[in-house]
C-alpha cells in the first residue's frame, strides 16, 4: 500500500506540475500578448475593425461668361462584381444571368469577369443610365445579386459637346487635369478630399454609429470664363468652314473685348474634341494645346499697323505724310554675299504716297521708309511696349513669348529692321497680335488678356478685375490709326467684304511661310485683324488661315471676317447707332 500511495502522490505531483507548467505558459503568453507585443496587436486589432474612407471633393465646374455650363462633374453609377463572394459556380452563373439581363449584356461576358479568387471588385459597366441603376439597386436590396455592388463615380460632362475643347482641356483616368484650363487650374478646380474614420463588424459591415469625420472635403472652385458660348461656337463653325473652303491646312480665330482684355472666343483648327471618351490620342498630341498662345507665326503686313502706330505716337508721321515708294529696296550684305532685295508684294512701285496709302496698298517699301524714320531703337522699343517677345500672362498653359531679334543680337542687320517693320523675320503668337490690335482699339492702353472672369468657391467668389498693363501709344495716335485702318478696310478691293451697317477698322496680312531653305512664297499665312465699331471698338477680331489656296489675307481671310463680323454685329447689337454716327 505505501508504495501504491507513493506512486499516486507522484502522479498527482506530476499532473500538478504539468498543470502548473501549462498555467505558467498561458500566463506567459498572456503577458506576451498584453504587455510585450501589445502595440503590434493593438495595431492589428485596430486594422481589423477600423476603416478610413476618403471622401472625394466635388471638382469645380467651368461656365461661360453667361453662366452656361461647359464642363461639370456629376456622379454616375458604376456596377462592380466581387468574385470571391461568388465561389459557388451556380450562384455565380445566376448572378451573371440576372445582371446581364439588367445591363443588356450577354451573361457570358459578365460571367467571364467573375474570378472566385479575386476579392477586389471588378467594374462591369460604368456611367449607367439612372433607370438601369435603380433596377440594379432594387435587385441588390432584394438579395438577387450577391457579390454585386453599385456606387456612384465622378464623371466629367460637357453639356455643350465639343465646344471650346482646346480651351477647356481634359482629365486623365485619375481625374487630374491634363490639358487646357483643366490643367492650368488643377489645384483650384480639384479641391481637397475629406477623410472619415469608421469601424466595421466581423462581417466587414460598417458600424454606422462609429463614423467620425476627420476632415470634411473641400470642394473645388468653379471657373466662370470670359468666353461666350455663342461667340465660341460661331467662331469654331466659321473657321472650320473657311479652312475647308480655302483648302487651308489650319487656322485661328479670336475675338477680344479691347476695353477689358477679355477673350470672348478663341479657336484653332484642326483641334480635338472632349466629346470623345478617348480624348487623348498620341498621334494628335500636337493638338492638345491652346494653339493661339502656344504657336508663333510671322504676321506679315498686319505688323505694319504697329510700325505706323509707333511713328504716329512719336509724331514722326501723320496720315498725310508722303513717302516715296520706289517699289524696291536693296541692301548690300558685305563682300562676297549677294545683296538682299525687298519688294512690294505686288512688285509694283507706288511712287510718292501718303502713309494712309502705305497701309491701304500694304506697301513694304513705304513701311520701311516709316521704319527708317523711327530707327531701330524706337521701333524695337515699341515692339516691346506692344508686348512682342513677351508672354501675355493669359491663364492658358504653354504660352510662348514669340521671337523678336533686336539690334543687341549679333545676327541682327538692317535688313531685319525693314522686314520686321512689315511683319517678316519676327514671330508672334495670335494672342500677342490680337492684344496689340486691341491696344489700338482701347485708345492706346494695353489690357492684360484674360480668359477667366470669376472664380467661385466654397470660400466665396473672386472676381478678376480688368488689368491695364501700360499705355503704349497716345489716345490721338490710336484714334488716328483707327481712321487709317477704316480707310484700309473701306478700299475698293475690300468692298465685297464690308460688314453691313458697321464701320470697321481693319488690316489684312499675308506672310510667306518660313522653311529651312528660306521663305516658301507659294505657302502663305493669310490673316486679317479688325476693330468694330471703329470709333469706339467693342470687339477686336483676328482671323488667320494657314496655307490657303487663295493665298492673300484680302482674298482668303477677309470674307471670313465679313461673316464673323456680321454675326457678331447682330449678336452684340453693334450698328450705326453704336458707331457714333
Amino acid at each position, binding site marked *: 500500500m505505501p508504495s501504491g500511495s507513493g506512486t499516486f502522490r507522484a502522479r498527482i505531483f506530476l499532473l500538478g506540475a504539468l498543470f502548473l507548467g501549462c498555467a505558467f505558459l498561458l500566463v506567459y503568453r498572456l503577458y506576451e500578448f498584453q504587455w510585450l507585443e501589445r502595440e503590434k496587436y493593438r495595431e492589428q486589432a485596430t486594422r481589423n475593425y477600423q476603416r478610413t474612407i476618403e471622401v472625394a471633393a*466635388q471638382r469645380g465646374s467651368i461656365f461661360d461668361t453667361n453662366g*452656361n455650363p461647359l464642363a461639370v462633374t456629376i456622379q454616375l453609377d458604376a456596377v462592380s462584381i466581387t468574385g470571391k463572394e461568388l465561389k459557388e459556380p451556380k450562384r455565380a452563373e445566376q448572378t451573371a444571368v440576372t445582371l446581364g439581363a439588367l445591363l443588356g449584356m450577354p451573361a457570358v461576358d459578365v460571367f467571364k469577369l467573375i474570378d472566385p479568387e479575386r476579392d477586389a471588385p471588378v467594374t462591369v459597366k460604368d456611367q449607367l443610365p439612372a433607370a438601369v441603376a435603380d433596377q440594379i439597386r432594387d435587385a441588390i436590396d432584394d438579395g438577387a445579386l450577391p457579390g454585386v455592388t453599385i456606387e456612384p463615380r465622378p464623371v466629367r460632362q460637357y453639356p455643350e459637346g465639343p465646344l471650346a475643347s482646346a480651351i477647356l482641356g481634359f482629365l486623365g483616368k485619375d481625374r487630374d487635369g491634363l490639358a487646357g484650363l483643366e490643367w492650368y487650374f488643377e489645384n483650384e478646380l480639384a479641391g481637397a478630399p475629406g477623410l472619415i474614420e469608421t469601424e466595421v463588424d466581423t462581417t466587414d459591415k460598417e458600424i454606422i*454609429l462609429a463614423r467620425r469625420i476627420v476632415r470634411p472635403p473641400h470642394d473645388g472652385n468653379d471657373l466662370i470664363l470670359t468666353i461666350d458660348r455663342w461667340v465660341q461656337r460661331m467662331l469654331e463653325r466659321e473657321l472650320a468652314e473657311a479652312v475647308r473652303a480655302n483648302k487651308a491646312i489650319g487656322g485661328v480665330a479670336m475675338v477680344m473685348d479691347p476695353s477689358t482684355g477679355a477673350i470672348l472666343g478663341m479657336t484653332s483648327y484642326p483641334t480635338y474634341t472632349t466629346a470623345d471618351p478617348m480624348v487623348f490620342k498620341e498621334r494628335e498630341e500636337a493638338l492638345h494645346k491652346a494653339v493661339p498662345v502656344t504657336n508663333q507665326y510671322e504676321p506679315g503686313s498686319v505688323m505694319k499697323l504697329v510700325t505706323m502706330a509707333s511713328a504716329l505716337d512719336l509724331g514722326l508721321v501723320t496720315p498725310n505724310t508722303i513717302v516715296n515708294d520706289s517699289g524696291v529696296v536693296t541692301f548690300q550684305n558685305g563682300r562676297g554675299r549677294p545683296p538682299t532685295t525687298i519688294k512690294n508684294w505686288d512688285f509694283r512701285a507706288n511712287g510718292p504716297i501718303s502713309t494712309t496709302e502705305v497701309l491701304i496698298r500694304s506697301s513694304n517699301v513705304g513701311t520701311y521708309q516709316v521704319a527708317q524714320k523711327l530707327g531701330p531703337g524706337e521701333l524695337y522699343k515699341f515692339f516691346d511696349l506692344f508686348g512682342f517677345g513677351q508672354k501675355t500672362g493669359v491663364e492658358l498653359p504653354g504660352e510662348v513669348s514669340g521671337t523678336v531679334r533686336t539690334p543687341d543680337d549679333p545676327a541682327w542687320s538692317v535688313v531685319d529692321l525693314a522686314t520686321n517693320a512689315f511683319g517678316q523675320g519676327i514671330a508672334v503668337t495670335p494672342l500677342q497680335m490680337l492684344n496689340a490690335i486691341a491696344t489700338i482699339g482701347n485708345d492706346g492702353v494695353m489690357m492684360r488678356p484674360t480668359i477667366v472672369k470669376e472664380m467661385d468657391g466654397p470660400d466665396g467668389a473672386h472676381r478678376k478685375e480688368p488689368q491695364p498693363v501700360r499705355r503704349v501709344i497716345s489716345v490721338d495716335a490710336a484714334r488716328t490709326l483707327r481712321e487709317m485702318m477704316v480707310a484700309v478696310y473701306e478700299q475698293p478691293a475690300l468692298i465685297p467684304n464690308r460688314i453691313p451697317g458697321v464701320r470697321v477698322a481693319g488690316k489684312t496680312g499675308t506672310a510667306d511661310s518660313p522653311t529651312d531653305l528660306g521663305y516658301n512664297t507659294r505657302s502663305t499665312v493669310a490673316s486679317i485683324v479688325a476693330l468694330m465699331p471703329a470709333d469706339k471698338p467693342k470687339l477686336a477680331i483676328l482671323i488667320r488661315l494657314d496655307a490657303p489656296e487663295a493665298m492673300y489675307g484680302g482674298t482668303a481671310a477677309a470674307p471670313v471676317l465679313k461673316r464673323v463680323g456680321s454675326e457678331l454685329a447682330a449678336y452684340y447689337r453693334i450698328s450705326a447707332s453704336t458707331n457714333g454716327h
Partner: protein
Amino acid sequence: MSSIAPGRPGSMSTRMLAAPRVRRPSRLLWVFLLLLGLAPPAYLLQTGGALTTGYEIQKLERERTVWLNRNQQLEVEIARAQSLAWVEHEAVQRLGMQRPPQTVVVRVDTPVPARSEARLLRRGGEPMPAVPIEDGPSWVDALDVIGTALGLGD
C-alpha cells in the same frame, strides 16, 4: 393524558419563538435587483434602437445622395437640351429651319435688354432658377389698386 408543565422562562418553546427569524429582503433591495435585472436588456434595447436608427439614417443618406446625383444628372440633361448644338440640331432636323443666306440689319430704337445670368448648375448640386423671377406686383399691391379704385384707400 399528558400535561404540559408550565413553562419557564428560557424554556424551549420560548427559545423557538425567539429564534432569529429569516428576514425578508427590504423593498429597496427588490427594486435594486429589478433594476439590475432590467439594465442589460434596457442597454441592449437602447443600443439596438440607436443602431437601427443609425442604419436608417445611413439608408436615408444614401437615398438622399442618389436623389442629389439624379438631380445633377437631370440638370446636365437640361443644360444639354439648352446647348447651342442641340438647339441647332432640333431647329434644322425637327423644325426644318435653315441658316439665312444673308443677315438683314433692322434698326429699332428700343433699349437693349440686359442678358440674364442663367447659371443652371451651381455648387453643391443645388438647382438655381434658370429664369430669374421678376418682381411683379404682389396680390397685396393688386388689392391696394382695387381698393384705391373703389375709393377705399386713405
